């Protein structure tokens, strides 16, 4: 394992160098075979060699660069001294006088000058000039500004002092020609040296680039090989080594149906590596809980992922993922409900599924199903970009409201701005509802929302109660599988009866009221009926929905049932208590009395009952979100597209082009992405909380075998 750490170090260094010099790392597409032990040594030696070579190149490069910097300094120094000597009055220089020239950072120069003043009390001449910052200079040395300076001073012994000062200020000193003619020679020699150095540097860089490019072709392949080796060694480390130091013993989890597969893979592996011992596979008993493994294909993988995100199922518990494939897109679609948007979403999902097959996006089938279901609910709500389709002919007829059938005259149209269609006038309402979905006449009615709100609220309650009853039914399956038959009687049946007696009755009232014909002015409200039932309020002046409406019994039933489920844990705890007394070595929990158990179960029962009511109300978000979506869609049409449509002149078409583009962009960003995410989130919450808390425990852990695909995917 130390081996692989070194290799990873080398590989990291290589990759860093490549990034620094901007070499392109080629991506490999073929899957490489897993390397065996000898490959490890080979890879290691290759890496070491490469790294040494690169380090040497870098060292040389740095040294050459330093040389170049010095030469550049000398060059600009020479130029400055040339200028200085050309100034009149500086030609002569006595033998006692000496001058020193050098280069110093610009920011340190003032302090340098001050120190020199203090030292020599003004007995010196100091000239300085800023070094020209050429492009090359900047590339080589960076953005540091430097000054060239030259000091004339009298006396011999001061040379040491100045040298020490310059050292302190980290200025580099260079030897300087004394006469006028030497600078020219020095200048030319410096120039040639610089040219040479530049060429050498260029060659070095080219060589380095060549080495890196050759390595870059393989680095991806090496990287994945190293990762695989590391994973294998890590997994092998988890096994035990046998006493004889020659065998490895491992305890593994394995799906029962795959036992033969594992056996054959072991045999194949032992043949390939040429060992003499055949591997042995035995089933052993254990008290530990096995991990949960749900076989998925590319289609169901996404749905399983969203269930697992909340909690991985307990071992052998019923898996709600298979039902989620249908209920999740359906609940999404109820909140999204627009066939135009649904169509756009479906087309997008089809494009993603067909085009991007190599990048596996787990959610693409979810989006595809969500889109298809949205087209369906869009057709039911009869809503396409906020307009309705009139495919089958509306059941309402306005013409019949006029004379001679109905009360309206020509003058009625002039007097009133809002007119109401009376369905009891013969001919106005044909008697047969619209064939599929909401009648298109509602789209142009001004009381559209009163009708749709009532419809959507009742529909949400019906869908919610059905979903929750389905969840309770799944808990029955769990009880049967785990052989907890007393729980069926003590938990499932009371829950079922409670829900049916209250919410089942509510659904019955809703469906009944939808089916019969009522005058809307005198129709009783279901909400008021329900509240009166709770309060045991049966005053006769309230209009009854049907004859013989006596509903107290359902309430009493609900009450009985609540007490029934109380008995559940009491009984089971009593049973456990008896068992504990019989087996004397099991310690009984101190302070657990009948009263505690009773209170615990009471809390549990109240939690379930109140939870039912709050969960049913929670399903009203199906109504709320679909209302929000419909209204946003209508606002977008009216504020954006209608402005262009209402211009009847020729300019209208140009405005329409521009406004349609704005409409499309806003539809995609606001209605599809924002509302889509919102509806997705709420549908998910409904599944996780309201549906799954009826039956799902979710306290297992996932079965994670070593998989190279997922390993390489996560580390990329």
């Amino acid at each position, binding site marked *: 394992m130390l081996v692989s750490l070194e290799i990873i170090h080398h590989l990291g260094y290589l990759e860093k160098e490549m990034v620094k010099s901007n070499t392109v790392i080629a991506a490999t597409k073929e899957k490489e075979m897993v390397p065996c032990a000898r490959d490890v040594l080979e890879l290691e030696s290759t890496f070491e060699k490469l790294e040494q070579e690169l380090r040497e190149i870098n060292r040389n490069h740095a040294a050459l660069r330093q040389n170049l910097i010095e030469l550049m300094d000398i060059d600009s120094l020479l130029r400055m001294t040339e200028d200085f000597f050309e100034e009149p009055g500086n030609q002569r220089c006595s033998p006692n006088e000496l001058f020193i020239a050098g280069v110093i950072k610009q920011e340190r120069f003032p302090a340098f000058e001050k120190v020199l003043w203090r030292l020599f009390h003004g007995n010196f001449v100091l000239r300085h000039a800023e070094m020209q910052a050429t492009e090359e200079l900047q590339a080589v040395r960076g953005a540091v500004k430097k000054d060239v300076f030259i000091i004339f001073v009298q006396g011999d012994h001061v040379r040491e002092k100045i040298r020490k000062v310059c050292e302190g200020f980290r200025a580099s000193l260079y030897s300087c020609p004394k006469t006028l003619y030497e600078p020219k020679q020095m200048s030319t020699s410096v120039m040639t040296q610089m040219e040479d150095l530049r060429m050498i540097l260029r060659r070095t860089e080219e060589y380095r680039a060549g080495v890196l490019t050759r390595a870059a072709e393989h680095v991806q392949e090496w990287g994945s090989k190293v990762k695989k080796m590391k994973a294998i060694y890590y997994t092998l480390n988890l096994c035990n080594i046998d006493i004889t130091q020659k065998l490895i013993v491992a305890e593994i989890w394995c799906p029962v149906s795959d036992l033969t597969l594992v056996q054959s893979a072991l045999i194949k592996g032992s043949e390939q590596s040429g060992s003499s011992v055949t591997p042995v596979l035995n089933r052993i008993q254990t008290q530990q809980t096995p991990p949960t493994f749900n076989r998925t294909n590319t289609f169901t993988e996404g749905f399983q992922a969203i269930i697992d995100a909340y909690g991985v199922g307990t071992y052998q518990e019923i898996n709600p993922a298979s039902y989620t494939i249908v209920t999740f897109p359906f609940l999404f679609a109820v909140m999204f409900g627009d066939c135009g948007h649904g169509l756009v979403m479906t087309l997008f999902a089809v494009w993603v599924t067909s085009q991007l097959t190599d990048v596996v996006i787990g959610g693409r089938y979810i989006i595809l199903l969500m889109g298809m279901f949205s087209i369906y609910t869009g057709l039911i709500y009869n809503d396409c970009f906020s307009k309705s389709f009139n495919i089958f002919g509306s059941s309402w007829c306005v013409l019949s409201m006029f004379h001679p059938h109905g009360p309206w005259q020509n003058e009625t149209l002039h007097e009133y701005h809002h007119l109401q269609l009376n369905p009891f006038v013969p001919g106005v309402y044909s008697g047969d509802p619209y064939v599929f979905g909401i009648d298109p006449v509602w789209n142009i009615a001004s009381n559209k929302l009163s009708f749709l709100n009532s419809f959507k609220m009742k529909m949400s309650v019906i869908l919610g109660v059905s979903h929750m009853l389905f969840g309770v039914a799944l808990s029955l399956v769990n009880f049967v599988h785990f052989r907890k038959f007393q729980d069926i009687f003590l938990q499932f049946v009371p829950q079922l009866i409670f829900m049916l007696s209250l919410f089942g009755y509510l659904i019955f009232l809703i469906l009944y009221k939808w089916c019969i014909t009522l005058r809307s002015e005198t129709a009783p409200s279901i909400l008021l009926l329900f509240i009166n039932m709770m309060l045991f309020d049966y005053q006769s002046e309230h209009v009854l929905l049907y004859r013989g409406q006596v509903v107290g019994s359902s309430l009493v039933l609900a009450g009985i049932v609540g007490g029934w489920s109380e008995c559940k844990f009491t009984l089971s705890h009593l049973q456990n208590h008896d068992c504990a007394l019989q087996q004397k070595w099991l310690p009984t929990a101190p302070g657990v009395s009948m009263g505690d158990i009773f209170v615990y179960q009471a809390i549990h029962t109240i939690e379930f009952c109140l939870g039912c009511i709050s969960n049913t109300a929670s399903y009203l978000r199906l109504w709320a979100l679909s209302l929000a979506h419909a209204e946003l869609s209508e606002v977008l049409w*009216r504020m954006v597209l*209608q402005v262009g*449509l209402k211009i009847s002149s020729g300019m209208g*078409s140009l405005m329409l082009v521009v406004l*349609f*583009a704005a409409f*499309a962009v806003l539809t995609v960003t606001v209605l599809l992405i924002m509302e889509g995410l919102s509806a997705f989130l709420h549908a998910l919450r409904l599944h996780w909380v309201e549906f799954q808390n009826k039956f799902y425990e979710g306290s297992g852990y996932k079965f994670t075998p070593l998989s190279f695909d997922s390993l390489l995917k996560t580390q990329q």
Partner: protein
Amino acid sequence: MASLLFCGPKLAACGLVLSIWGVIMLAMLGIFFTTHSAVLIEDVPFTEKDMEDGPTALQNIYKLYNQVGYNCFIAAAIYVGIGFLSFCQIHLNKRKEYLVH
């Protein structure tokens, strides 16, 4: 010929998708307007004057419907042009990609 390329590959692809959507949707809207669909009554710019009692009231409204319908068709035709332009841009972008290598 290289100067004909004025937008990148992503913008051109967006333009193509937008034009296809625009052509389909505006053409359908045009058809629905010219068949005088009642659902689209609020999108037609009629005034009080058009609804005065008289023999031509209905024809006035129908004429307005037709005008809006023709506007939609013209806009759809403009989008065909924009779509063709975007398609050419995508083509040029692909060619440029091949040339560099």
